[in-house]
């Protein structure tokens, strides 16, 4: 027995000594789950230093390891929207040139699959008139449960192209009377903001064709105190924040936007210190009742894009400021992850991604690339 035991031990030791790491198989490419966890977000690296070659980076903001899940291309001044959690597609508004920066231009909507990040198709935009504006959610939107994709065009004539995502076909192009961007409105429609502070609204039929056009009255002064063109949606209520801290609550669930009123983010003392919103994606919201706004002290004409030292949290039910979250590095763009336990994701002014919990505690700081400029953030929907 004893001898047998020793022989057994010896054979184990020999195996350990001789073991080597296994030969690995090629080729091997990672895959992703078809449905992403709530903590995953899309960060649009606009790649300001080389604008023709941006990307959309998929990040698990809750992870301590393997947080960078992959990326898809997003060419110059690209736009982006992801389908909702139940659907599988990602959409990028791209512009290509046959010779990189010259030659024949081709605008398309590129379609990618969430699970593989492979390109699964594209829809030509034959007029090559896709708006090229610094990344914003409201350049490209899905409506009617992702059935229709709306593309904002600017040449500088403004229009919206409607695409049936199931048929991968353009169903309409709708001219806008000097209005901008796409704010989903009603069952199957959108509004745009116009140069006089009014809304222009279009509703579509089930074929994606326009059936109803309307213009609202002006509801703010573009010259005195313009609203940022990047509102927060909570359900079908949009909150538009102005340069001087006013919030306009707009019901977008009907055939036309309905301005429900406005209030100020700042009290008299804060107003006198010129606390104002500042940054790029300056506001976000949870699924329920809280709006988050990047705020900066000592604001002035022209300070509205430099980022802010705090994020303010407002309850839209009683319009009260309930929390001020000091940023460890000033915030430039913000987003909340989706679901019941969201995180506050901040692209700070150094272009690093800070992840805060809702108590305002910084959980981690991520670099998405040595020269990445992830200025637009898209949570799961």
């Amino acid at each position, binding site marked *: 027995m004893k001898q047998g035991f020793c022989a057994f031990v010896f054979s184990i030791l020999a195996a350990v000594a001789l073991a080597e790491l296994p030969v690995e198989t090629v080729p091997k490419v990672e895959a992703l789950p078809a449905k992403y966890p709530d903590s995953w977000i899309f960060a649009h690296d606009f790649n300001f230093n080389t604008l023709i070659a941006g990307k959309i980076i998929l990040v698990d903001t809750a992870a301590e390891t393997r947080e960078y899940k992959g990326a898809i291309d997003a060419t110059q001044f690209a736009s982006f929207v992801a389908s909702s959690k139940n659907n599988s597609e990602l959409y990028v508004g791209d512009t290509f040139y046959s010779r990189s920066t010259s030659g024949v231009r081709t605008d398309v909507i590129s379609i990618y699959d969430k699970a593989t990040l492979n390109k699964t198709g594209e829809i030509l935009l034959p007029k090559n008139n896709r708006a*090229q504006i610094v990344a914003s959610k409201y350049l490209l939107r899905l409506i009617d449960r992702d059935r229709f994709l709306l593309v904002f065009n600017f040449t500088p004539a403004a229009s919206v192209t409607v695409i049936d995502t199931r048929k991968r076909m353009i169903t309409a192009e709708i001219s806008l009377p000097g209005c901008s961007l796409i704010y989903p409105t009603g069952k199957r429609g959108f509004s745009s903001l116009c140069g006089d502070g009014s809304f222009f609204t279009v509703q579509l039929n089930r074929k994606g064709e326009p059936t109803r056009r309307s213009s609202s009255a002006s509801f703010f002064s573009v010259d005195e105190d313009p609203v940022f*063109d990047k509102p927060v949606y909570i359900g079908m209520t949009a909150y538009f924040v102005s340069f001087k801290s006013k919030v306009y609550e707009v019901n977008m669930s009907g055939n036309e936007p309905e301005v429900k009123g406005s209030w100020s983010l700042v009290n008299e003392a804060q107003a006198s210190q010129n606390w104002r919103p500042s940054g*790029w994606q300056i506001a976000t919201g949870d699924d329920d009742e809280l709006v988050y706004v990047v705020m900066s002290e000592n604001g002035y004409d022209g300070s509205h894009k430099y980022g802010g030292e705090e994020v303010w949290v407002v309850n839209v039910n009683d319009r009260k400021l309930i929390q001020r979250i000091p940023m460890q590095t000033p915030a430039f763009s913000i987003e909340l992850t989706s679901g019941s336990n969201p995180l506050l994701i901040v692209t700070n002014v*150094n272009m690093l991604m800070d992840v805060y919990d809702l108590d305002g505690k910084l959980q981690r700081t991520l670099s998405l690339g040595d020269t990445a400029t992830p200025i637009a953030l898209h949570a799961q929907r």
Partner: protein
Amino acid sequence: MKKLDRLVEYASRKLAQRSSRRSLLTGLGAFLFGAAAVPLLPVARAAGESSGGYPGVGAQTTGRTDDPGDPTSCDYWRYCAIDGYLCSCCGGSASSCPPGTEMSPITWIGTCLNPADNKNYIISYNDCCGSVSCGRCFCNRNEGDKPTYRPQSNNDINWCLGTQSAVYTCSAAVILGVKTDQ
């Protein structure tokens, strides 16, 4: 692997720089998109910058006392509503495009105060188009900048419109005239 040791100090400084807690002092990093910085104030120049507004960029003058400042510096008066790479740093000038690019005929407009004559000038920000982003002297100032629904006053739009290529290279600031209504 000895030479790899050199990295340690470099790494430490880089980390300190990008994740500094002195938030008020790094607030304009965004403005720079993580790039080489823009020393705008005399104190920065006094601190050893002999080469103009941006480190590693030669200073320029317009040669006119009534057009004061350095066209390679973000604080040059004409740039009050600019957003992009300064053509002055890219082979062009404050009002011209680098060779090999095309100037956009469609522009956004700002109103900037010339400190020499205390007049407000209408400035046309003409993008230069057709080769890759210059990448030198990034400058973003937003006096009078309005959101995209007032496009002629918005600097977030790629104004390479009406050009053979819509690829953005840099931005120039051209005098259209003096604002008369004030």
